[in-house]
């Protein structure tokens, strides 16, 4: 167990470093930050000066070393664009993204598992066929279009739900700003959460269905039926639980991509999260923010992976003895 966590941590550090290197190397190509930092009156000489002051002219290893040494202390510098400490900026935006990701993740998980189980158990009936087909729309249209269409229908035409933003927010503790506790906050969450969750829901649903169909054919399910267990016990106690083992992994990985995909949803709904921050930062070549965001994403993944592994560990007793063959 300790060994396993240790190994995970070592792997995580390597992952983080790799992401840092890759991300950092990439920034050299996304554009010139100075051009978007200064007004048009700034002379070329002044621009060069700023570049020098920002350390953009240092050799790559120097820049990287500086970045990493500061990053491990939690210091990602100051945003070129907003002149605010990046860490603070990201932390202030993170709750919005996490709430959105969590809610859509939970929605996706529950609907995904529910529909997946239903369509697996009722294979061939028209309702499960329809669910299967309709759910595909979630992966057959680009997210941004789904978002825009939802706004059009529910905000503009029907005026049921807000079209943008997070509504009213209140603070929990010092910095966690939540929209979940206010009515407008919850209303604002609905459309973005659907937009973001639809894709994941489809994936989870399909996965659950496929896994469930596999599991339903296993001997132990047959044996469970032969023992006269009720359908409920067999389908949910035995089949679903076994289905969830792989589903947890994928859902865990999806959680990360939910956060990444929130870039689009946040942009469409002007959701004040880190994704929108990132995409604006790309436009403005706000390197410190971009770097911090990528590190954050990597961190989130690493943490989620760890949680998933621990969950795995909790769910599947086989792994408690021998981990070496667990991950494929």
């Amino acid at each position, binding site marked *: 167990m300790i060994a396993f966590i240790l190994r995970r941590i070592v792997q995580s550090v390597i992952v983080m470093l790799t992401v840092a290197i890759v991300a950092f190397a990439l920034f050299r190509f996304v554009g010139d930050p100075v051009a978007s930092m200064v007004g048009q009156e700034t002379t070329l000489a002044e621009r060069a000066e700023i570049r020098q002051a920002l350390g953009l002219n240092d050799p790559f290893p120097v820049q990287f070393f500086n970045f990493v040494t500061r990053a491990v202390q939690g210091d990602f510098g100051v945003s070129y664009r907003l002149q605010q400490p990046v860490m603070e900026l990201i932390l202030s935006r993170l709750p919005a993204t996490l709430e959105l990701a969590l809610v859509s993740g939970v929605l996706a998980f529950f609907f995904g598992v529910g529909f997946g189980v239903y369509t697996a158990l009722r294979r061939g009936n028209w309702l499960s066929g329809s669910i299967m087909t309709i759910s595909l729309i979630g992966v057959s249209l680009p997210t941004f279009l789904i978002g825009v269409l939802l706004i059009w229908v529910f905000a503009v035409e029907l005026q049921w739900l807000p079209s943008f933003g997070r509504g009213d927010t209140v603070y929990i503790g010092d910095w966690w700003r939540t929209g979940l506790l206010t009515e407008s906050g919850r209303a604002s969450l609905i459309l973005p959460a659907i937009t973001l969750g639809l894709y994941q829901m489809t994936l989870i649903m399909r996965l659950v269905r496929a896994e469930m169909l596999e599991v339903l054919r*296993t*001997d*132990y399910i*047959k*044996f*469970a*039926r*032969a*023992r*006269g*267990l*009720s*359908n409920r*016990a067999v389908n949910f*106690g*035995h089949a679903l*639980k*076994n289905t969830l*083992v792989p589903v947890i992994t994928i859902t865990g990985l999806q959680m990360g991509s939910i956060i990444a995909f929130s870039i689009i949803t946040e942009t469409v709904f002007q959701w004040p999260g880190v994704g929108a921050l990132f995409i604006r930062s790309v436009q403005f070549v706000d390197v410190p923010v971009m770097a911090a965001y990528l590190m954050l994403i990597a961190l989130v993944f690493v943490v989620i992976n760890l949680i998933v592994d621990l969950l795995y560990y909790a*769910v*599947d*007793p*086989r792994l408690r*003895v021998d981990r070496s063959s667990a991950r494929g």
Partner: protein
Amino acid sequence: MTAISNKPPLLSVRDLVVEFPTRRGTLRALDQVSFDIAEGEVLGMVGESGAGKSLTGAAIIGLLEPPGRIAGGEVWLRGERIDNLSVEKMRRIRGRRIGMVFQDPLTSLNPLYTVAEQLIETIRTHIDVSEKEARKRAIALLDRVGIPAAARRIDDYPHHFSGGMRQRVVIALALSAEPELVIADEPTTALDVSGQAQIIDVLKDICAERGASVMLITHDMGVIAETADRVAVLYAGRMAEIGPVRDVVQAAEHPYTAGLMGAIPTLTQTADRLTQIPGSMPRLNAIPQGCAFNPRCPRVFDRCRAERPELIARASGRHVACWLYETETENV
């Protein structure tokens, strides 16, 4: 067909037909299979792979996998017809009155639950006892099937057990609600030579102890010979021969059974060549007219190719489906 004793049989299967509708027509996997199992009796069921042994078991316990379905015939359990019961009623029979043991102990147990959980769940599904009581019963049962330190090991997960031990657990599970009939579908095939005998012994002893009847499905004639009271031989979904084990093993009447017995190498005799039945069992979509065995039969004659033989009662409760014996029947 008459039962071997005066008491009504525990299980009576009458003209059971199981079909699989497929794109190329309906396959008849079991064709008018009839047999009885008496109380306390061990009935062996042998036949080549695909003969329909497992299907018979699955059909009795109502677990045919779709699209397979019972297309005809009846199954009676202690005078009660069970092949047409509602799903819920049938569920209550499974485990409680008919237990089942599958071939592969490695995959029969849900890896995510402890043995205790699975046992207690089963017991409490059928018998109204407290959790504690169920656990006590479970431990006793494990102890009975020969799991050392049962009280401690009951909380282990299946993967903590070796293959032989797991099969014991499976047997314990099948017997946990004290069924009257146990259907064991090749319970030892996945085990080692040395383990096989142990498992068969456990199964047989416990069932005898509790007065449960056993339907032992296997393709190992040796196991049957040692364990069963009577043996039924299936061929291509049809009953070829059924009778007391000694009769069938030592003096098979159906040419197929005879061939089968000759094909088994033994430790004692040293023939240079084994008797061999030419060809192989027909596929379900190509079962020949008349007797299903006729193309391979060394004693085939015209009638065999045209008419399907019924089970014919022979001396000492033996039945054979072969035209060779028709005339003799009349004498009986």
